[in-house]
């Protein structure tokens, strides 16, 4: 549990950070909350020669509303997400999900940018961002671009982010007022990654589902947006048969690993159970 040697950088602007990244390529890694990279370095599973601490970059902080969307700076901590009144009123599922990440000490340091950018399938925010149809603002040597969360994840720890690029913010379209939501997470203990988790955001109108979005955490090597399940559910009254079909469709896209949380079959089934429970809770919360 002793890391190898590395050079520590502490830039104060995004441009400076990107410049350091660009000059060292694969040998450099950004440091956000550090909950993933530092243990990996201590285990010597990661050995970056340059560690770029982003905590001095003021521009990466903060939560604001911008033309129908919520923009959250990448270095905003999970604790700040939980404490935000703006998020509590516009995107309460972020608070609900954040409270299920690890424990308060970790949430004081863990950031939304680190959580979404690392590509760890165990992280909770990526599936939630897919569910909310968020996109990530990314800055590299050639300027800024936006990547949809649903297009961002390629495999475990592999994303659409280039080595010299930095996620600077997440942009989340504000869902309609009165939307129903739920994040259901099954885990073995505080601090554990999900055995399986499901994020649901839906709107109801006259007793039937007018829009629905579903994504799953840690039951594949990427977060999984359950498009087919969404299609099945949209327009339905969430009757038992429809829910069963949607759950089956969601289970069908899972490819979980067998590990200490349980064999693959169990984790797939738990994704279904979490989805079922999230749907029920989201529907109960939805107005209309």
């Amino acid at each position, binding site marked *: 549990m*002793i890391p190898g040697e590395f050079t520590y950088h502490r830039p104060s602007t995004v441009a400076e950070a990107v410049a350091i990244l660009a000059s060292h390529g694969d040998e450099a890694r950004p440091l956000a909350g550090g909950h993933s990279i530092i243990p990996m370095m201590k285990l*010597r599973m990661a050995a970056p020669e340059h560690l770029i601490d982003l905590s001095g970059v003021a521009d990466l902080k903060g939560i604001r509303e911008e033309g129908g969307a919520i923009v959250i700076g990448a270095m905003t901590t999970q604790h700040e997400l939980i404490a935000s009144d703006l998020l509590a009123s516009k995107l309460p599922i972020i608070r609900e999900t954040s409270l299920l990440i690890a424990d308060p000490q970790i949430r004081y340091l863990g950031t939304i940018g680190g959580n979404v950018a690392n590509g760890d399938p165990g992280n909770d925010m990526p599936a939630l961002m897919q569910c909310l149809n968020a996109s990530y603002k990314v800055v590299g040597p050639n300027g800024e671009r936006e990547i949809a969360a649903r297009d961002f994840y390629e495999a475990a720890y592999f994303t659409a982010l280039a080595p010299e690029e930095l996620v600077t913010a997440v942009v989340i379209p504000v869902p309609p007022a009165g939307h129903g939501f739920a994040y259901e997470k*099954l885990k073995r203990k*505080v601090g554990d990654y999900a055995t399986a988790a499901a994020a649901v955001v839906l709107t109801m109108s006259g007793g039937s589902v007018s829009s629905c979005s579903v994504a799953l955490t840690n039951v594949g090597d990427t977060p999984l947006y359950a498009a087919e399940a969404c299609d099945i559910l949209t327009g339905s009254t969430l009757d038992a048969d429809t829910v069963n079909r949607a759950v089956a469709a969601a289970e069908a896209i899972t490819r979980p690993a067998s590990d200490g949380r*349980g064999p693959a079959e*169990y984790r797939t089934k*738990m994704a279904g159970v979490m989805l079922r429970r999230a749907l029920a809770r989201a529907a109960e919360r939805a107005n209309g």
Partner: protein
Amino acid sequence: MNDMTPTREQREAALEGMGCKRKRVEDVRFTQGKGNYVDDLKLPGMLFGDFVRSPYAHAKVTKIDASKALELPGVIAVLTAEDLKGVNLAWMPTLAGDVQMVLADGKVLYQNQEVAFVIAEDRYIADDAIQLVEVEYEELPVLVDPFKSMDPDAPVLRPDLEGKTEGAHGPRKHHNHIFTWEVGDAEETDRAFKDADVTIKELISYHRTHPSPLETCQCVASMDKVTGELTVWGTFQAPHVIRTVASLLSTIPEHKIHVIAPDIGGGFGNKVGAYPGYICSIVASIVTGRPVKWVEDRMENLSTTSFARDYHMTAEIAAKNDGTVTGLKVHVLADHGGFDACADPSKWPAGFFNIVTGSYDFPTAHLAVDGVYTNKAPGGVAYRCSFRVTEAAYCIERAMDILAQKLGMDPADLRMKNFVKPEQFPYHSALGWEYDSGDYHTAMQKAMDTIGYRQLREEQKAKQEAFKRGETREIMGIGISFFTEIVGAGPSKNCDILGVAMFDSAEIRVHPTGSVISRMGTKSQGQGHETTWAQIIATEIGIPAADIMVEEGNTDTAPYGLGTYGSRSTPVAGAAIALAARKIRNKAQMIAAHMLEVSEYDLEWDVDGFQVKGNPELRKSMKEIAWAAYNAPPPGMEPGLEAVSYYDPPNMTYPFGAYFCVMDIDVDTGVSKIRRFYALDDCGTRINPMIIEGQVHGGLTEGFAIAMGQEIRYDEMGNVMGASFMDFFLPTAVETPHWETDYTVTPSPHHPIGAKGVGESPNVGSVPAFSNAVNDAFGFLGNTHIQMPHDAWRVWQAAKDLGAHG
């Protein structure tokens, strides 16, 4: 007397003696982060050692090339088995009569086994150098399943034992066999089974887990080449034993070895044995002439230092139709890993597993244990239990439930029917123990009444009906455990460690002003000895506990003792403390008689001094007597007021308890919730009820962890799965249930203060309660036995196999 004279009650309260909920004095430093642990120690010129470890579970080591590591600036040396052979330390004896490699000698037997020891100027350089040591391996077939250890074609794990048909505990019947240990009357037991109305038989496995103390194993060794003295600071539960063993192995005379155990951050059995890290640090310090520190990381601790359990127990009970048990037969397959480094008293290869008759009056029983080698880490320590007692308690408590189910009897009623009766004590068990005291029926009845047992069964029945009607997906289990522990090892007639008898000791010195320093052969790792030992002395000699300093862990100053594990401190050292204190009180009585100019027979003890019988105003307090002891002793008497006592216990002590667990299980996820957990403990005389409660909370939390998911798993290649706290279940405050504690008091008749020891009861007693609750919940669906650990996916799997998912 005037109004200012304290009353007897006030004087008694001022002592904070036995029975007082005295706050833990050691917590003043621990809660401020001012504890002094091994890793806090920084000596001038100190070097750091770290291990190159094997990635393979079973392989030949064909070449070790350290040249690149040695080129790295700051690397002092790299030790291998070849170097250790020069000082005859490539192998070391284990506590179980086996030998163990210190560093890989030609092969490795488990993943992460120590292969080479790198010594460097700091930890970072040491770890960098580890990556540079080139080791060539030739993989060998891996043996993970103990049930396959004695297959005719099983790989030979221990070529060093080739041809040895006799082990430390009798004949070996296979190249991977360690011992067979048999107790009881096989013929008589067979007869009981032949005549039985009902019999049950079940393979009850207790999985491999680990004591996982928060502080890992570590040491600093410092050899002074000028004086020839070796000082070793370490996380030692038994510092004197370490000194003796170090002297025997190193040939450094014992008086030139100083072993110091500073504050220890939990042990739970993990810190009883000797590890390669200690040997290598000592050798490294001898070679370099500089202090050498070795500190394990979490993965090293979980994957290489002593594990616990891995017992596979086939239990059979014979009974009459009315539920009376008539015979018990148990066979155990014990997986010891690559070396038998089980920490038991030397004559007990399966510890005190023959307590497996439990709290029940079995007229006859037979037990056989076969120990085998596998490609797993060595160990088999008592993880917060007396030697193999938690395995035994789990075995019998699970088996009694299975019998109750087969008979259609309530499991509480079955236990009540078969308990050893109060008038049978001292009770001689069919497997050879003499239970000192007990009142099982009273404890069980109190527990059942407090928890509302009959009503809970009614509620459970209603829930089962609702489940069958499809109205709920939740089921309810009630787990009962009525355990009898055997602790306080132990009487020298049958207990020793490598020939050292298992007595313990205390030394008490009363200073002239009436304050006290006392030292014991035990070593607290969190048990609170600094608090409780002072309470025993306070009551015995009438000096306030606040004026009594307790010191442990320095072999230069403490009297020789066997250390702290197996709940032995109170039964053994606790008795030594009381007896040493009584020597002081006896001398004090003579001094008081001289001071009061009466015969000592005219005096009586009264809380904190002696008074003249019938004339209590004529009295001398211990404080006054202490001054006189040094400055005005009776003519002819040696000055001073101190005593040493070594205590060889006449018997073990037998704490017991009644535990009930009420559990709700979500059949669809396998997630269980402990609704209530009630623990009634009878540990005899209670020294500090608050510390007992704390001990019980800690032990219950460990038992909860073990039963519900804490496990050291291996894949078929012998890779350790999840040797970190990400996977190894260590519950936080969030997962830990609320504990309800209670007690009865049945003193030990042979112990000077009647105390029995309690630290390990809650681990021993709770595991069967949790497991029985899970098994009980599924009983109505046809379940007989579900193996531990009961983590969510396995419970879900059990539900699925029983058809509960529709």
